[in-house]
């Protein structure tokens, strides 16, 4: 968990409930009435809102964007900026495939609105590269074959990167906890643990 906390609540899951309502404005979220009838109502539809100008600071580059306030950081990264190293697995904070670093801490980009990522330093998988050269965590995942299909891998790598930035010499248990919010359906966890240990070595040089 983060050292730094948002005023509005927990940092890992991005926006808090209170923060969300503040952003959307009270009238924008229509309450859903359960009628019990078999007719599916049109309730719950969020009215289109004006686009908002924001500036995001990603991998050392600044991006000026027009976004809808409801757009997730994940959507903006992948579909608007083409930074597809960050993957989409669930869009509801279950799997960690979209993990990025926000001010150095691992966060789920699907649970973070683009508008709340303003003024923060965002690092994605692409940001770990040094030109065409892999970063140490990426190199360790390559050496230890710490993936199969590779789709959860960017998130796993970012979780390990975040861990090593705050704890350069983690124990096995600390590694297991650090990646426990990142599902790997291919089930390669045992190799991920080894890669994380190797990454710690590589970073120490």
């Amino acid at each position, binding site marked *: 968990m983060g050292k730094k906390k948002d005023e509005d609540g927990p940092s890992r899951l991005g926006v808090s409930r209170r923060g969300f309502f503040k952003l959307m404005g009270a009238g924008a979220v229509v309450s859903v009435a359960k009628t019990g009838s*078999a*007719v*599916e*109502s*049109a*309730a*719950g*539809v969020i009215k*289109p809102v004006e686009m908002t100008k924001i500036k995001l600071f990603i991998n050392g580059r600044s991006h000026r964007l027009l976004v*809808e306030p409801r*757009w997730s950081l994940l*959507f903006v990264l*992948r*579909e608007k900026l083409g*930074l*597809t190293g*960050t*993957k*989409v*697995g*669930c*869009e*509801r904070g279950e*799997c960690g*495939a979209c993990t990025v670093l926000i001010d150095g801490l691992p966060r789920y980009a699907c649970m973070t609105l683009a508008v709340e990522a303003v003024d923060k330093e965002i690092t*994605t*998988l*692409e940001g770990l*590269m040094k030109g065409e050269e*892999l970063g140490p965590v*990426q*190199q360790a*995942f*390559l*050496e230890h*074959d710490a*993936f*199969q*299909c*590779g*789709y*959860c*891998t960017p998130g796993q*790598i970012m979780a390990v990167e975040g861990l090593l930035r705050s704890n350069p010499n983690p124990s*096995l248990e600390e*590694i*297991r*906890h650090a*990646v*426990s919010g*990142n*599902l*790997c*359906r*291919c*089930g*390669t*966890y*045992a*190799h991920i643990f080894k890669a994380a240990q190797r990454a710690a070595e590589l970073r120490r040089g």
Partner: protein
Amino acid sequence: MMREERETPKPWKKTEVIGKPIPRVDAYDRVSGSAIYPSDISLPDMLYGAILRCPHAHAKVLNIDSREAEKMPGVMAVIKVGTNGPDVEWPYLRGLKTKLFDPHCRHEGEEVAAVAAESPYQAWDAIKAIKVKYEILPFVADERKALESGAPAVHEGGNRSGETQIYERGNVERGFAEADVVLEETYRTESELHTPMELHGCVAKWNGDRLTVWESTQGVYGVQARVAEVLGLPLVNVRVIGSYMGGGFGSKLQAGKYTIVAALLAKKTGRAVKMFLTREETFLCVGNRPASNMTLKAGVKRGGVLTALEFSCIGTGGAYPAGGTSLVDWLVRDLYQCPNVRTKLTDVYINAGPSRPCRAPGHPQGAWALEQMIDALAETIKMDPVELRLKNIPLYSQAREGNPPYTSTGLKECLEQGSKAFGWKEALRKAFEANTRGGTIRRGVGMASGLWVAGGGGPPCTIIIRLFSDGSVNLNMGASDIGTGTKTVMAMVVSEELGVPVNNIQIEHADTGTTQYATPSGGSKTVPTEAPAVRAAALHVKQQLLEMAGRELKTEAGQLNLKNGEILSIIDPTKKIKISGLSELKRQGVILGVGYRGPNPDKKVVNPFAAQFCEVEVNIQTGEVKVLRFLAAQESGRVMNRLTYENQVVGGVTWGVGLAMTESRILDAKQTGKMVNRNWHDYKIPTALDVPAEVISLPIEPEDTEANTTGAKGLGEPVTIPTAAAIANAVYHAIGIRITGTPINPLTLSPLFSARRKEG
């Protein structure tokens, strides 16, 4: 090109590359983010699709009103029940067809309408604005009740999905009469969902009447065939590309309705459409491993010889024919020598999403029953469970016509070497000693065996290899690399034969427009299917290369050898030339080699075998179970790449932990029929905290010269077959309570502990 007769290459003896722990050839792409998966595709002027699905377990669409949705900002097309174009039908097994958007929704999540809009947010706004009036019908959501009289019918004609399947050999009544001990038990495994990390879906784009689909799939040619069939297009007008894909486990062997929906929306709007499902939809609509309700009766003599096995299973493929009991009885039929066997499989319909093949269909369920039963028999006759299994090793396939022998069967070696490496006897003794001291933490060890009905691969498969004038190589194959390391293994085969470093091999694959025909990557058959064809293609290149060098060196090709990019005479060491120095190759630009997968050996069976061992800790107060260590002895023929091999072992064991301990689809069978745990919070797949920190892989490598020209058999599926049963046996050893239903977790264990405490 004519397929000329070529000599079958001899088995490899000593290998330079094959078997080594070489990192994947596409590892850089996958860890750097440069690999483009289908869900990463973004095309100019692309729209986003979304699907409205029936929220009821069983309903009829009476009326659908999309007028409001069609007027919403960004919405470019709506298609729905009754208006989805020229008779688009969706085929199931056994000739059953429904409309793509069928007014009769037989399961929660059936497709009712779809939208294409400028953003996915707008598409979902529109989906929510479509008003549907349903007639809600009575449902059946429990396969055990589907055949009861008065059960609501999923299809006209009742809830039986096909005929009951009976298999019989010998005489089970006589077998039970000959037995010293007969046990009977019922078992149940819950339904599992595949939920691969990359969502199911595609991007579809038309150029006139030609369609290109970028799909997350295990087999591009399978998707091409289905799309062409459903839309009535020539095969060549459908190009399917899927070079990277984020996991499938059997659920992406075929096109989905979503593929057709994307194509129809793209046609209607004249724009590319990206259509990826939400995670929730993947829980409802794109397959599952069916629940299995099994009864097994078994007879054994005091000396450990099995005399009879009688097995029955009721299962369901969901609302449509989908093989709900497929292969559940195979291990009972073929894992152990047994003269008298009878099995009965009953497949029924229920109002739930159709199943799809799921990593070793039927086998982990069958192993859950059979391997717990073997454990119970061993205890009853006071025999070590490893020894009991060793007494019943099959010498040939008893369940197949004509009792064909196996090309190799390593079951005995898996059991013997696996138990030795695990320290089985010692672990049994230590656990016993620890438990006699009492306390809340109890220790247990358990083991189980398995085989996989397939895993030998076979034709068809064509590979093309191009050797360029500088000695670098391009490999062209149609197969998908679903994460098992297929590309890497194939590059290693080329490297072995041509001496080209794997980094100098570029692979083009999984594209119906540009790569060779291939069957889908599934059934643990990809390596044994593709690798022999790759070897043949490499040897075809080598033969032409030596002939070319022979002309330049003015010597017989038969006297030449290829080593480290150089062709040398075996007789006269001064006669040598580098590949890059061949003037004929420079002029010609390329040598093209073609390889085909030859036939499998006649009247022989190619199956992988396994034995797995584990140690667990059970907290008898909380019901928490920890898997402390795990050893998998796998006989899958030759190990092609030690690194990716071990990774498959780790992954298969993780899947078994899921079946045994964490995964269970829950349908609200009494009130709504709906699935109540349609997300990864409520449906739990194993996390980093649920698996043993280390899984020891012990490859058993008999020399199999008959299976195919590489000696490799499949691994991905066999490695998950015995796992759950091994864990169940270890839990029994720890606590003395036989858990016959999955999952084994605090919820299922703690009531058993309190009941036991009450009984004193």
